[in-house]
């Protein structure tokens, strides 16, 4: 019951955060509300016995990536005038909402067709660093290396892109 309560709390927080992300005008507000979603998700991961992912979600996502985003937002020193004037935002949100309804319903239908399963917290080492690490270096080695390469490439790319000078008119 306690776990269910936690789930409901995190779920509500996550959805609220996401709604905030979509609706807030200033990206800074959006980012803050998105952080709420990320942290709630981390809680959900914990409830799903994914210990490592829980930690990574907090450290990498909510920590590193989001701080990067927030940093850039602040770095650009965005004034309200810089922001696009989205007078028809709500209209678009409504339209988008209507568009995604079939998608959502379709997914829901699929989920419904799956058998229900308990997600009670598992004991033992499931989702621990060691187990995931072993799996990662045993079965997923090549994808792992490829991802590392991808990170390297994006690093170089980011440096080159952002480091360009004097191309402004």
């Amino acid at each position: 019951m306690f776990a269910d309560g936690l789930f409901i709390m995190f779920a509500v927080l996550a959805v609220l955060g996401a709604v905030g992300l979509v609706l807030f005008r200033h990206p800074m507000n959006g980012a803050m509300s998105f952080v709420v979603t990320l942290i709630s998700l981390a809680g959900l991961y914990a409830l799903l016995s994914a210990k490592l992912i829980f930690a990574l979600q907090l450290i990498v996502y909510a920590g590193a990536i989001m701080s990067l985003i927030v940093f850039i937002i602040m770095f650009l020193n965005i004034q309200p005038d810089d922001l696009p004037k989205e007078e028809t935002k709500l209209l678009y949100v409504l339209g988008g909402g209507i568009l995604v309804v079939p998608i959502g319903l379709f997914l829901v239908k699929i989920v419904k067709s799956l058998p229900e399963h308990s997600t009670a917290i598992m004991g033992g080492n499931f989702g621990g660093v060691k187990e995931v690490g072993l799996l990662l270096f045993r079965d997923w080695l090549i994808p792992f290396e490829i991802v590392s390469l991808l990170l390297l490439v994006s690093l170089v790319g980011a440096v080159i892109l952002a480091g360009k000078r004097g191309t402004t008119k």
Partner: protein
Amino acid sequence: MEQSVNYLGLIPLFPLMGAVLIGLLHVFTCKRTALPEKVYGILACIGPVLSFVLALKVFVALKALAPEARFLTHKAFTWFSVGDLHINMGFLADPLSCLMLLFVTFIGSLIHIYSIGYMGGDKNYGKFFAYMNLFLGSMLVLVLGDGPVVMFVGWEGVGLCSYLLISFYSEDRSNVLAGNKAFIVNRVGDLGFVLGMSFLFWGIGGNGFDYLSLKANVQHLEPAIALTVCLLLFVGATGKSAQIPLYVWLPDAMAGPTPVSALIHAATMVTAGVYMVARFSFLYAGVELAGTIVAWVGILTALLAAIFGMFQDDIKKVLAYSTVSQLGYMFAGVGVAAYSAGIFHVFTHAFFKALLFLGAGSVIYALHHEQNIWKMGGLKNKMPKTYITMVIGALALAGCPPFAGFFSKDEILYSALATGHFGIWAVGVLVAGMTAYYTFRMIFVVFHGEPRDQHAYEHASEAPNVMTVPLIILAVGALFAGFLNLPGIFGGDQIVSHWLAPSLSEQHPHGNLFVEILAIGASVVAFAIGIKIAYGKFGQGAPEPSFSGFADFAYHKFYVDELYDRIIVQPYKAIGSSIWKVIEPNVTDAPVKGVTRLYMVLGTAFKVFQVGYVRIYALYMVLGLSIMSLLLSQSLN
């Protein structure tokens, strides 16, 4: 078969080889130092003479055979053979082809010799003889071919040579146009020939497509097919032999050198149509309607050409129309099933018409290529040999007894009368009178009276011997060839008819003496009237007349050329250019252009969706995803 001999193929081969040899020599030397003319002259005469010798050998060999089995064959090789179509490159010599063979090689040789003199000094001397030899070879293939397809080789070959020789002086556009006209008109006829052959093949050709097999199977041919074949083949003949409606090329063909006119457009090639009809006599004999049509077309051509001939002022055009006219007689002859009479007229005509042309050539040569008779006159003193020989030719042409033309023409008219074709006979007699008129009009204007062009007259002189000797030989032929087929009424026994009988499916009409005398009498009277009028008008010299009314109409050949131009040539060109300029881009190509235009339209239409905003592209994606979801959720459950 014991009648298979191996030298028939050589007869056309000699001139053909000569043509190749002379042609190559000419082509490779004409841009450098030209070979002496003598080389060409001698080389050119070897082939025809050898062929003539072999023709004599054939004649002797045939003579030795029994009349009903009088034929020799020579299968050189299988030409082509597909399914039940078997065509051999085979040759057949029977009395009919032997007769043609003899006079073609004989006259051909003479004209070659004559040309040595006439063509002297021409820069394309070698080319001329190459063409002439090629012509002779093709003509011999035509005559000797053992089936319609081999005949067609010669048939087209002579057409080609005719084209080449008409446009011989190719720098002048009108000559080349005349050549084109000849070739194209001949091709129209050839279409008939090819179609006729095709129908004949599908009728009875499966068991062998040569004359002997065809003759043996002719009774299996359905009458309707037989009529079709006969008429189609006759279309071929009208092209080659210049009959209505395809006669228009022959007068223009006089643009070629005069020996060419003599050899090709008078003596040999143009008679190929008559020869062909006689060849297919087994076919025509069975279809009376076809024969009647042939006869009427022939006699009407004779009449028309005679009318034109009376008003021409070019010496060669007069002769050309007389040729057309005489060819009409021949067709009238073969049309009324008097094949031997028709062929006999071919034979005699070859002599006197070649003679007249060569004589005319000699006149033209003397006057430095002046052809208008109204610029000549009084030449009989200057050129006695030419004068005398030409008069002999003219008498023969006009049908004066006892010259060659009289017997042959009379034979045709008699046959027409005896088989009950009174209309043809009547027109024929009328034409005989007109023939006498225009022939002697020409003779009187050219040779009698006062010289009209003093300057030219003074420079005129008799042609060299190499030219006059052939004239004399031909004159002898024109005088005496008629006696070869002397009818019974004059105590002869119709040697030629009897000789030809095995080749032809003809029944000699048994007319009575009265009919025979009537025919002869009418011919003679017509001749006499014609010559009388001619003498009355032109005997003492006459000024150049100016034509009006009907004469003017006839002088312009009833505007037939213009009519053809208006209703065939111009529409043809118009169709061509309208296809190219209007139909091709707007109709045929329209679907293709339409497709391209459709792509343009679609592209412009879809461009609307390319708004350029990332968000909208994402929207499209979501839209698609959404629609897919909708569809997919239908299938779920």
